[in-house]
């Protein structure tokens, strides 16, 4: 009982301090992780084994960490090193691609393809955002798309705000479509042993159906605003080729990105785990740009990786002390054995929570909960997993603080003189989030229950 109370207190305080932003979140999560190891697992439980399990270093020497016909050997206990290694690898690759001008080139090529017309550009950028976010983190997607949007809006004389909001939503939606699109999905996939293909067939299908409605929503909401552009001098259009700094680097980054996509799509067949793919992609990026390697390594967002480490320890502590089982029992009591109610509760509670708090700690905490629920109720774990993935990824779109892409997009708009406060943001994004959540719920009900 004592260890449970202390572990809950550590978790709640950690969450509160992270939200307050008084201290950087990686320091908070590492400190909370340290307290969880020493006080809860060490002093209260007197269990060196629990500490060792939570640190989970043994995972590195497990063959299935690097090679497995499926990800089935994944474990939700303690630090999920596969997630960390994969995200590290993708960060290095994305840094290399950004340096080579890939993203700006892609955005400008899309703009040129639609002859720099505002309304077609709006639609194309939504789809681009969705597709890119399936493979690349949404922060990077929005960083480049929003910057190009602002630039084109200046030239084409339209407000970039509707387009940036639509890109944000599509980035979050695209992130929900694959295993590597959004950190919660990576954590769910590696912890519960799902493959890229399984995500694509399940959350990907839901995201694809939702995308049609999302495009229609944004189109009808903003079409008048985007069709009243003034006459523009065609010579002022930015050329895609201007984005490429070095043709060799650009070609290499395209090949590496292609490799990453192929490896991810085929990893269930090849048996390569996401940890192996992350390591391989990072090594390839560093080896093909040896001179820039120190800079690429320096630019990795280590703070986020450390945040993950601390977070996994805290969640591992909650799991070891049985707190998450109590939560699972509580949900079971509320829902009984009604699978529809259970899916609806998980979907809406996760979506609402993700709209206000970071969806990564939320998803990490919920994984053992849904595992326990599946074990006690006999419900299919995969259904609960797809429900959790959709709700945490998409629910975050509802408010400006719900997901990283929202913060970055809103910030880029503001830096360029387009203020998007809570009211303006939610007026557009809350209805489309609710619509998408309803579509997701309907899809899950019809397909799985």
């Amino acid at each position, binding site marked *: 009982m004592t260890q449970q109370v202390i572990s809950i207190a550590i978790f709640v305080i950690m969450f509160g301090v992270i939200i307050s*932003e008084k201290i950087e979140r990686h320091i908070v999560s590492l400190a909370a992780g340290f307290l969880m190891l020493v006080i809860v697992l060490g002093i209260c439980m007197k269990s060196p084994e629990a500490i060792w399990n939570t640190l989970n270093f043994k995972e590195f020497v497990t063959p299935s960490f690097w090679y497995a016909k499926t990800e089935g050997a994944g474990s939700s206990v303690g630090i999920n090193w596969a997630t960390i290694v994969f995200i590290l690898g993708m960060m290095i690759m994305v840094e290399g691609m950004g340096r080579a001008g890939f993203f700006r080139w892609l955005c400008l090529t899309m703009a040129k393809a639609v002859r720099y017309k505002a309304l077609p550009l709006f639609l194309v950028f939504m789809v681009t955002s969705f597709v890119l976010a399936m493979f690349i983190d949404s922060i990077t997607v929005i960083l480049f798309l929003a910057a190009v949007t602002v630039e084109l809006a200046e030239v084409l004389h339209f407000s970039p705000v509707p387009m940036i909001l639509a890109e944000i939503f599509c980035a979050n939606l695209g992130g929900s479509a694959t295993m590597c699109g959004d950190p919660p999905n990576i954590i769910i996939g590696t912890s519960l042993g799902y493959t890229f293909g399984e995500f694509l067939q399940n959350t990907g299908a839901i995201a694809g159906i939702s995308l049609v409605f999302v495009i229609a929503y944004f189109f009808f909401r903003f079409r008048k605003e985007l069709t009243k552009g003034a006459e523009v001098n065609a010579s002022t259009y930015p050329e895609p080729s201007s984005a490429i700094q070095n043709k060799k680097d650009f070609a290499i980054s395209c090949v590496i990105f292609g490799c990453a996509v192929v490896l991810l799509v085929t990893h269930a067949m090849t048996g390569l785990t996401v940890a192996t793919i992350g390591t391989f992609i990072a090594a390839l990026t560093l080896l093909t740009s040896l001179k820039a390697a120190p800079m690429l390594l320096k630019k990795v967002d280590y703070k986020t990786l450390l945040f993950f480490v601390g977070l996994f320890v805290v969640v591992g502590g909650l799991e070891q002390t049985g707190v998450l089982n109590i939560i699972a029992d509580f949900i079971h009591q509320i829902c009984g054995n009604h699978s529809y109610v259970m899916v609806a509760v998980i979907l809406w509670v996760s979506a609402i929570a993700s709209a206000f708090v970071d969806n990564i700690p939320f998803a990490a905490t919920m994984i053992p909960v849904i595992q326990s629920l599946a074990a006690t109720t006999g419900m299919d774990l995969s259904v609960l997993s797809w429900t959790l993935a959709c709700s945490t990824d998409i629910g975050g779109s509802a408010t*400006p603080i719900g997901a990283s892409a929202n*913060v970055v997009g809103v910030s880029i708009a503001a830096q360029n003189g387009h203020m*998007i*406060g809570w009211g303006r943001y939610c007026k557009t994004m809350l209805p489309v989030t609710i619509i998408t959540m309803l579509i997701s719920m309907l899809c899950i009900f019809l397909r799985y229950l």
Partner: protein
Amino acid sequence: MIIAIGREFGSGGHEIAELIANRLQIFLIDDKLLYDLSSEKKIPYEELKKYDERPKVPFLSRTVAGYTNAMEEHLAKMQFDYLRKMAEGGESFVIVGRCAEHVLKDFPCLTSAFISGNKDTKCKRVMEKYKLSAEEAKKLMKKKDSTRKAYHNYYCEGKWGDSRNYDLCLNSSQIGVEGAADVILSYVERKQKN
């Protein structure tokens, strides 16, 4: 010459700044800053006013990789850049609030002052200016001062109203608005002679 005036609500800081600017025949930057930013960035003035000199709201704002959704913070950065640009351009001006004593601290031509006042005198001034009851005036003073303090302390190393951060700290209730303007002007004069 740059004169930065920090002030408690109701202390007459704005009037003192106005008086100094008139006597020296230099710009007074207060709302002008918002009007200039509004026309430069093509943002409606009312929209900027909403976020002016306000701290970001905890729990409603988030920072990711150096990016923030807090519009208050974006406006503050625009204002700080504007002030630095003005100062670098060699302009003379009086600026009210906006953490100017901290933002422009590296400019030797800066003189900073903080204006405080006795509660009763401030309350009387607020009651007259805003046509409020004593209770309403006190409430408003408390709210405004707490907002200004939170805004200032978020962006600056030194605390709001701490004498170590200003050249002068004056109580306008003791010497009046004219008196405070005189003290600041004579300080500036002596400083220039040295």
